[in-house]
C-alpha cells in the first residue's frame, strides 16, 4: 500500500542479527516497572530512527521454564519484546499487530487453569508482571515484556507496529522456532541449477517459456499426470516467503511417522493440526522445492500449494512454477490410505490465492498465460488420486513485491498478445 510507503519492513530471514543477551542465572522478581528478561539468547534486533526493537520467541520448553506451565499446549506462544524509545515523543505500541487475536495476560492464565476462577498453580498476577500491559512508551524509556500470541510452529512471522511521533514504524520479524523440521530448510535452492542453466527472458519470452512448461505434476515414477500447474511467480525467494507468511500460510513439515499420526488423529477427531505434511509431487524430475498450507476450520478444510524453481529469470528475478489445491474432504485410497479430496474447480482455488495474496498487499501485478490446457466441466481430467478436475487452462502469473500494494494499485496485465494459445 502506497500509504504505508514510509513503513520500514525489514526481513530478518537471511541474516538475523543475533545479540547475545546477558546470562540470567537468577530469576528476576519482575516487579512492575522492572525490565523483563528475554526467554533465550536468540534475540532479533531492529533499529529505525529513534526506535530500537528487540524480540525473542520462546520455544515450548522455554515458555514452560518461564511461566511454569505448558503454554504451547493451550495454543499460547509468548513473544518477548523490548521497545526502546530514544526520541523525544511518546510512542504507541500496538500488540494487535503481532496477532489480532492475542491473549491478554489474564486470558492466558485462565486458559491454563481451565474454567475455575482460582485453583491450579497459575496466577494471573505472574502473567501480568511479565506482560506488556501498556500501549505507550514515553520518550527516553524502555518497555519490555511478553505479548501472548497464538502458536506458530516452525517459523514465527509477526509485525511490530509503533506509532505516535508522526512517523509510524512497522517492522516485520521472521524468527525460526525450534521444534519443527521444514521442507525448504532441507532444499538448497542455490544448487538446483548451474550458472549456465539460467535463462534470462523478457516479457514475451517469459510468456512463451511458461506456456512450454509441463501442464501438470507427476508422481515419483514420472508416469501419471496429476494436478495442473496453474501458478507462476516472479520474485526472489525471500519476497515470496515474506508474502506467503504475511498471507497466513504455514510451511509444511517433512513427512515423519509422528506427523502422519498427528494427521490421522486430526482427520478423525476434526482437530486442528496446521502443519500436517503434504506428499511429494514431481516436476522437472524432482519433488517440490517448498510447500505451504493454510488451515481453515479443520484439516478437511485446507488449501495447500507447492512450488518449483524454474531456470527462468525475468528482470533479474527468479521464476517459479506452482500448483494449488483446496481440500474439501478426506477420502480413502489404496495408495496413501487417506488422501484429500480436492475441489475439482481448480480455477476457483487459483483465484482464491490471488485474493489472499492481494489482501496481504504482496501482488504488484498479475496476468494469465496458457500451458495447462482447458478441461471443461463436462469433460474433466483426472489427477493422480483419480479425482476429476476442470479448468479454463490458464496459468496465473504473479509478480510478488516486497513493497506493499493496495488492491486499487495492482496492475492487471493483458498477456494475450504474447501468448501462442487462445486464452479465455
Amino acid at each position, binding site marked *: 500500500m502506497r*500509504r504505508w510507503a514510509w513503513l520500514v519492513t525489514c526481513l530478518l530471514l537471511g541474516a538475523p542479527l543475533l545479540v547475545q543477551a546477558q546470562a540470567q542465572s537468577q530469576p528476576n522478581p519482575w516487579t512492575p516497572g522492572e525490565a523483563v528478561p528475554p526467554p533465550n539468547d536468540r534475540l532479533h534486533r531492529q533499529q529505525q530512527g529513534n526506535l530500537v526493537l528487540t524480540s525473542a520467541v520462546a520455544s515450548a520448553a522455554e515458555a514452560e521454564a518461564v511461566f511454569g506451565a505448558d503454554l504451547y499446549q493451550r495454543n499460547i506462544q509468548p513473544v518477548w519484546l523490548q521497545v526502546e524509545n530514544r526520541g523525544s515523543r511518546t510512542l504507541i505500541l500496538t500488540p494487535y*499487530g503481532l496477532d489480532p487475536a492475542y491473549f*491478554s495476560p489474564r486470558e492466558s492464565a*485462565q486458559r491454563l487453569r481451565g474454567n475455575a*476462577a482460582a485453583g491450579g498453580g497459575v496466577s494471573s498476577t505472574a502473567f501480568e508482571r511479565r506482560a506488556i500491559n501498556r500501549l505507550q512508551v514515553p520518550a527516553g524509556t524502555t518497555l519490555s515484556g511478553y505479548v501472548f500470541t497464538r502458536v506458530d510452529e516452525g517459523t514465527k512471522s509477526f509485525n511490530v507496529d509503533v*506509532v505516535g511521533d508522526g512517523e509510524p514504524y512497522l517492522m516485520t520479524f521472521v524468527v525460526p522456532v525450534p521444534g519443527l523440521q521444514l521442507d525448504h530448510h532441507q532444499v538448497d535452492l542455490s544448487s538446483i541449477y548451474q550458472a549456465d542453466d539460467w535463462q534470462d527472458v523478457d516479457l514475451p519470452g517469459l510468456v512463451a517459456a511458461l506456456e512450454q512448461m509441463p501442464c501438470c505434476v507427476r508422481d515419483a515414477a514420472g508416469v501419471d499426470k496429476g494436478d495442473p500447474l496453474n501458478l507462476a511467480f516472479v520474485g526472489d525467494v525471500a519476497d515470496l516467503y515474506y508474502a506467503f507468511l504475511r498471507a497466513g500460510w504455514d510451511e509444511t513439515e517433512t513427512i515423519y511417522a509422528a506427523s502422519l499420526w498427528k494427521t490421522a488423529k486430526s482427520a478423525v477427531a476434526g482437530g486442528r493440526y496446521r502443519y500436517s505434511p503434504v506428499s511429494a509431487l514431481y516436476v522437472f524430475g524432482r519433488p517440490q522445492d517448498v510447500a505451504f498450507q493454510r488451515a481453515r476450520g479443520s484439516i478437511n478444510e485446507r488449501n495447500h500449494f507447492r512450488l518449483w524453481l524454474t531456470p527462468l529469470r525475468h528482470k533479474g528475478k527468479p521464476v517459479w512454477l506452482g500448483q494449488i489445491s483446496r481440500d474439501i474432504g478426506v477420502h480413502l485410497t489404496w495408495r496413501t490410505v487417506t488422501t484429500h479430496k480436492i475441489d475439482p474447480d481448480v480455477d476457483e482455488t487459483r483465484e482464491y490465492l490471488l485474493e*489472499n495474496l492481494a489482501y496481504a498487499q504482496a501482488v504488484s501485478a498479475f496476468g494469465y498465460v496458457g500451458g495447462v490446457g482447458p478441461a471443461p466441466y463436462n469433460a474433466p481430467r483426472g489427477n493422480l488420486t483419480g479425482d476429476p478436475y476442470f479448468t479454463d487452462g490458464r496459468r496465473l502469473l504473479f509478480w510478488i513485491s516486497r513493497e506493499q500494494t493496495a488492491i486499487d494499485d495492482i496492475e*492487471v496485465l493483458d498477456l494475450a498478445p504474447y501468448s501462442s494459445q487462445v486464452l479465455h
Partner: protein
Amino acid sequence: MMRQRRGRVGTAGQRSWRCALLAALFTALLGACSLQGYHSGTLNEQAGFIARGVSQHQGPVRVTAAVPDAGETRALTGLDLYQQGIQPLWLQVQNNSEHTLRLALASIDPDYFSPIEVAYMNRSRFSAQGYHDMEAWFNRHGMVRSIAPGERRSGLVFTHLTPGTKAFNLDIYASQRAWNFTFFVPLPGFTADYRVVNLDVLYAPAAMQTFDEAGLQRWLEQGAACCATGPDGAGDGGPLNVAVVGTPLAVRRALFRGGWRETQADSADTRQARQHHFQGRAPDTIFLLERGDSNERLQLHLWRAPWNVSGEPGWIGQVVYRRLQSGRVLPGLEEWLGSRGQLSLFAKESVEADVDTAHRFLMQNLWYNQSLKAAGFVGGVGVSDANAPRTTFDGFPYVTEGFRAVLFLSEQPVAMDRTRLLYAPEGWRPEEGRP
C-alpha cells in the same frame, strides 16, 4: 489350559464380531437403497428473498445483494446450510464501465466456502446421480469473479453464517482502480436492538450540549458519572470506560469491520448486560465480539450521550470481557462471588475484572480495521485497586487505573497512520497510571 480358554473366548469374540460386521453391512446396504436424488429450488430474480435485496452503486458499478434466511436457503438449495454454519449470499453486479471488473470474493469472507465444497460436504445423503446433480447445481450458481464491460452477472457466494443483519464489505477492482462497498442486508425475524430505540427523542433539545475536543475531555473527567448504575438507577453498574464520537452508520461500520456482531433487545444472551443502566435506561445497543479460540467474549454497551462533538453524535459506553461456558455467560458466577472473601482474589485473577485491557483491545481493534479518525485516553473513572476493588451491583469486582478511551470513528476507512492521537499522549506516563 488358560491358553485354550482364551482361544475359545477369542473364537466366540470373532464370531460375534463377524455378526456385527454383517449387520453393519446390511444396514449400510439398506442405507444405500434409501439414498436420494437431488432436488433444488429455482434461483431467479422473482425469488422472495431477492425482493428484500439492497442495491448500491458507485460510478459505473451497480451491486445488489440479498440473503435468504434458513428456510429460504433450504428451499433454494435443498440443504440445511444454516445448520452447518453456511449462509449463501446472492450478488448481482452490473458493469457499466469499460474495464473487465474483478470481484474479490475474499473481501466478503476470507474463509468463504467454494460452491463445490458445499456440495461435497453434503454428499452422504445422495445417490451418485443425486450428488452429480447437486454438484452441477452449485457449480452453475456460484458467483463468477470476472465481469466483462456491459455485462450483468449474478450468483451465490457461500459465507460463514452470522446472526442478524448480514454486514459485509465487497471490493471490486480492475487494473489500478477499485470500488469498495459496505453492505447491511437485513434478515427477517431479526431486529437489532438499536432499531427499536428512537435516538432522536432520548434527550430534550435543551439538554443536548455541543463540545469541542477540550470540552469533551472536561465533561468526561468532571461532568460525567464514573459508572453505569443498576436497573433501579442506583449502585455501581461498572465503569463507563469508553466514549465514542461518530454517526450511527460509522459506529456500525466500524464494529462490523472489527468483527463485532449486533444483538436483539430481547435476547437471553444479553439479559444481564441490559441490567446496566445510564440515565435510567438499558444500553441503546450492545455488540459482542466472540473469540474463535477462547472461552471469552467482549461486550460493548453503548448509550447515546447528551452531547455532540463538531456536529457528530456522542456515545458513552462500557467494554468488558465476559467468560463463557457452552456459549453462555458463565452461570452461577455472581452467586459464587457473593462470598466476600472471593472478591479480592477474583479482582486479581479474573479476566472479567480487567476492564482496562478490554478498552485497550477495543481501541486497537478499531484502529487496525481502519475506522479510527482520532483516539486518546482521559480520566474520569477513578482508580479501583485489586486489594480493595469496587464491585458492581451484580457482583463483579473490577480493577482499573481510571481512564476512558475516547474514539472518534469514521464512516470511510482511515489508514492507520492517519489516526490522530488526542489529549497529549506525551502526558500518558506510567507513573500517572495512564493506560
